[in-house]
């Protein structure tokens, strides 16, 4: 690994500084700032100009794409099936509800997930972490939410893996989620983390959410009632989509 990378101590120090600056600002910020230097890849990939507000009730972004039965297959929500054998690792169930800011369920919308295997390796050619690939695990899944906004996946717990942000950088175990609401403005891509993971405080991507309460909303809850006997450990994680919901009914005209 090149020696010009910062150390974990240096990155942790920067994370602390960012947290203190946020606390001192007195503001409440639910999302990470796009300019977050401890996550080095953000340096050249965030705009320096402020976002331009669009307050137009006729904006096309207040409607959004829809998905249906043809966009998923029934087995897509079970990442442990569909291969020649069972994947290695700890079987888990991840379930929860997708809601909008008003607390209404987001029904019939697409939820997509992707993750590393139990050893911390993605089935992706650019992942150079020398942990074994699992021939029985692709790590991708999708489903549509039901009428109550519920989703449910069966998978294996992803492993932690090293990355090149700094020396000693390890991503905590996480599952990537992609979500759609009733409007394009509600689009969300995020990551779900596991409770009690000792790597959480060291990770600049999670810590980019400088508000501790907001950060806690990225960590699933272990739910023993979901841990069905001899099958899978249960985690519960509800998701709330930000941004305005659709302002008109589907297919309606101005």
């Amino acid at each position, binding site marked *: 690994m090149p020696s010009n990378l910062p150390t974990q101590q240096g990155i942790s120090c920067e994370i602390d500084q960012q947290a203190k600056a946020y606390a001192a600002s007195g503001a409440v910020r639910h*999302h990470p700032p*796009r300019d977050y230097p401890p996550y080095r890849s953000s340096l050249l990939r965030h705009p320096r100009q402020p976002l331009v507000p669009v307050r137009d009730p006729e904006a096309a972004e207040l409607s959004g794409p*829809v*998905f249906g039965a043809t*966009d998923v297959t029934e087995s897509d929500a079970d990442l442990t099936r569909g291969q020649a054998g069972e994947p290695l690792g700890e079987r888990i169930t991840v379930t929860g509800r997708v809601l909008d800011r008003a607390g209404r369920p987001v029904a019939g919308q697409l939820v997509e997930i992707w993750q590393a295997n139990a050893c911390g390796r993605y089935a992706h050619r650019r992942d150079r972490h020398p942990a074994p690939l699992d021939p029985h695990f692709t790590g991708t899944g999708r489903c549509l939410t039901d009428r109550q906004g519920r989703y449910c996946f069966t998978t294996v717990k992803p492993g932690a893996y090293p990355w090149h942000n700094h020396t000693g950088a390890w991503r905590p175990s996480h599952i990537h989620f992609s979500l759609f609401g009733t409007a394009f403005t509600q689009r969300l891509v995020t990551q779900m983390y596991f409770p009690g993971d000792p790597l959480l405080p060291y990770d600049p991507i999670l810590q980019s959410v400088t508000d501790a309460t907001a950060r806690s909303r990225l960590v699933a809850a272990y739910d023993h009632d979901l841990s069905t006997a001899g099958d899978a450990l249960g985690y519960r994680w*509800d*998701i709330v989509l930000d941004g305005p919901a659709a302002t008109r009914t589907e297919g309606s005209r101005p």
Partner: protein
Amino acid sequence: MSPLPTPSQTVGPFYGCALPSPDGHRVAPAGHPQAITVHGYVRDGAGSPVPDALLEFWQPAPDGSRGGAPGSLRRDPATGGHAGRDGVTFTGFGRVATDADGHYVLHTLPPGGVPYLSVCVFARGLLHHLFTRAYLTGGQVAEPWLAALPAERRATLLTRPEGAGVHRFDIRLQGEKETVFLAFD
């Protein structure tokens, strides 16, 4: 009490097996006579191509309807793989990953009722997606917020004609000619 939002996190570098589909860029039904092409490059603050950006496009149908239609990401229940679009339905939604040159191509139909395509940008290094718009009207836009922008900023939202039915739209995440990104909250 209304629930608080789930924070955004970066899409990271490894979404490639989960999100893109081989014909995600073919929003226009096959062989449609009104099809247009929008293409361009995504670049970072150093002017380097961004080879791992994911762009999503959303738009009304040519008749102005905004309901969209399922079928942008059809799956094959026999193989578990991609089934592709049905070639007839206009879903209004496109999804394209940039290539090693930071380049993307979208084939679609002209939007009805509005002069723009909505664009959502995801990338490794980008902790929260960015919205922008690709205006197809050659600068004839009446929206007050757009008219109020300095000309060089406004220009980043306007596609450039490149021959019949081909429009160029580059995205610069930072720095010189930085794209105007939008907030809807």
